[in-house]
């Protein structure tokens, strides 16, 4: 049978396999064929596997996920050729469920970026319009799923790196509650913020993949057991649900009118589906979320990236001199501009005399943000906003000014600072490009987010196959 990789959901693929209508090898080949056709243009993948390594549904992993014996670069030259000697826990869990690795997807270097333009291996392209970015840092995974090059994929989200590319590519992305998915084997960016999560075509697929990867891992001390099993959503109404619309998230400067319109329509839809909708305030979280993030994340990153020194693995610069020169040249050559910037920023924020004003203060702001969200979530079950202020922007549009690029995550960052989960679902188009709706819930509220997302998804009926590929 011919497999329509553009339309096939993971759930449907599992059904085909179960019924013996297609074999794992045939499925794998179908995706490799699609990759052959379209990935030259999209550059979603950094490498693919010729043979399936499981009997189940194929999956792509962002190249931040360690895969034993398969090159893992985190989008950086400093890890060119590096082959991990162990699998990330999330990879192991996927394999244990029979999922089969298609390949490793492109990403901004060390997950630092919002467009994949910071990849040392070239940018990825948005399947809706290849002259535009797919978002980042999980842009490769998003482009692969949206472009029919994988039924689903794993990405990672620190400051919106799953939610934002999902929004820009018109697919579903979940940033899970911090602590519900293991970071063991995930090349670290910011330890107290990094989470691995699914990028999928549907909310049900998202729940399916989350169920596979979530749960406490003894190798990661910051993980917890889920308080309740993951439920696959079925309902189509939102009766009894209280939906909050935080003014600051929905009226922030820089939100494009087309994005606002699509999100407003989705909010009205919530009411039609039986939810009660109300406005609420997050006075400080949006204004101080970004500064808070851009102190904490680089600080942790500056420490996490210290291990890339050319001693035990990875790139080592050829130097004549001694150790200091080795370190400095290796890291100069091996890191791109964005990691260097963040390492410098983070080192500064932690350095003697500056810790209290910068890192120390940011950790306190984080407390305030957590308090604000928790207060608001007393009165509402779920909060909604645009995921990204804009639709996908053209390649090169924001690369000259780091701060301009950082603003892509203005709306995605605040709930992350509070450790809260966020689900992005496509809710419409603006000028032919997808708009994402961000659903934010309390910690461990994934089942609720899936329920809301699924009901809205059914009602909106967004076709996640890019128009130009139909």
């Amino acid at each position, binding site marked *: 049978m011919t497999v329509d990789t553009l339309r096939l959901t993971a759930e449907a693929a599992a059904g085909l396999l179960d019924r013996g209508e297609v074999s794992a090898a045939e499925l794998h080949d179908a995706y490799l064929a699609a990759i052959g056709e379209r990935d030259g243009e999209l550059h979603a993948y950094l490498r693919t596997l010729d043979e399936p390594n499981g009997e189940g549904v194929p999956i792509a992993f962002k190249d931040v996920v360690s895969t034993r014996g398969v090159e893992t670069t985190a989008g950086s030259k400093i890890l060119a050729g590096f082959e991990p000697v162990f699998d990330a826990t999330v990879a192991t869990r996927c394999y244990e469920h029979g999922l089969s690795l298609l390949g490793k997807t492109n990403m901004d270097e060390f997950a630092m970026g919002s467009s994949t333009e910071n990849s040392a291996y070239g940018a990825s392209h948005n399947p809706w319009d290849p002259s535009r970015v797919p978002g980042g840092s999980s842009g490769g995974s998003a482009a692969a799923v949206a472009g029919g090059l994988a039924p689903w994929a794993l990405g990672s989200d620190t400051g919106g790196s799953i939610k934002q590319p999902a929004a820009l590519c018109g697919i579903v992305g979940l940033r899970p509650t911090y602590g519900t998915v293991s970071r063991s084997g995930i090349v670290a960016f910011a330890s107290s913020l990094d989470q691995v999560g699914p990028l999928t075509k549907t909310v049900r697929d998202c729940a399916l993949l989350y169920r596979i990867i979530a749960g406490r891992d003894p190798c990661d001390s910051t993980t917890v057991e889920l308080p309740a099993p993951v439920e696959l959503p079925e309902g189509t109404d939102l009766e009894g649900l209280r939906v909050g619309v935080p003014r600051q998230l929905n009226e922030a400067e820089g939100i494009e009118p087309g994005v606002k319109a699509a999100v407003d329509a989705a909010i009205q839809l919530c009411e039609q589906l039986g939810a009660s909708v109300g406005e609420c305030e997050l006075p400080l979280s949006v204004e*101080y979320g970004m*500064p808070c993030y851009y102190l904490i994340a680089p600080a942790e990153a500056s420490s996490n990236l210290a291990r890339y020194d050319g*001693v*035990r693995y990875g790139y080592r610069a050829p130097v004549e001199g001694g*150790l200091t020169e080795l370190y400095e040249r290796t890291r100069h050559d091996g890191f791109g501009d964005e990691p260097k910037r963040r390492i*410098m920023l983070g080192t500064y924020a932690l350095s003697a005399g500056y810790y209290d004003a910068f890192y120390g203060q940011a950790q*306190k702001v984080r407390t305030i943000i957590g308090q604000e969200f928790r207060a608001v979530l007393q009165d509402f079950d779920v909060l909604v906003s645009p995921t990204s202020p804009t639709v996908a922007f053209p390649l090169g549009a924001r690369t000259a000014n780091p701060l301009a690029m950082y603003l892509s995550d203005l709306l995605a960052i605040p709930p992350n600072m509070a450790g809260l989960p966020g689900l992005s679902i496509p809710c419409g188009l603006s000028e032919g490009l997808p708009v994402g709706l961000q659903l934010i819930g309390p910690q461990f509220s994934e089942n609720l987010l899936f329920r809301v997302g699924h009901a809205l998804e059914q009602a909106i009926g967004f076709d996640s196959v890019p128009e130009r590929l139909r």
Partner: protein
Amino acid sequence: MEITREQVQHVARLARLELSDEELERMREQLSAILEAVGKVAELDLVDVEPTAHPLDLVNVLADDVPRPSLPREEALANAPDPEDGFFGVPAV
């Protein structure tokens, strides 16, 4: 928030990052702009607020003192840029 060339050099040394003169100046400009933006956190009076180091209220995640197999040496050295007789080679310290 302007930072000086000397400050950038000092931080680059702490971070073991070589920067050419041109890179140093560009970094200085960009960091100054970013620090201006993130320095906003200082506006808030948070003297009585506890810092949040972890999003979850977890404590005491400890493991039993039971050994697990170590890597075979070939695997430990598999990715080493300069393996020497079972050791990791580095330039003189």
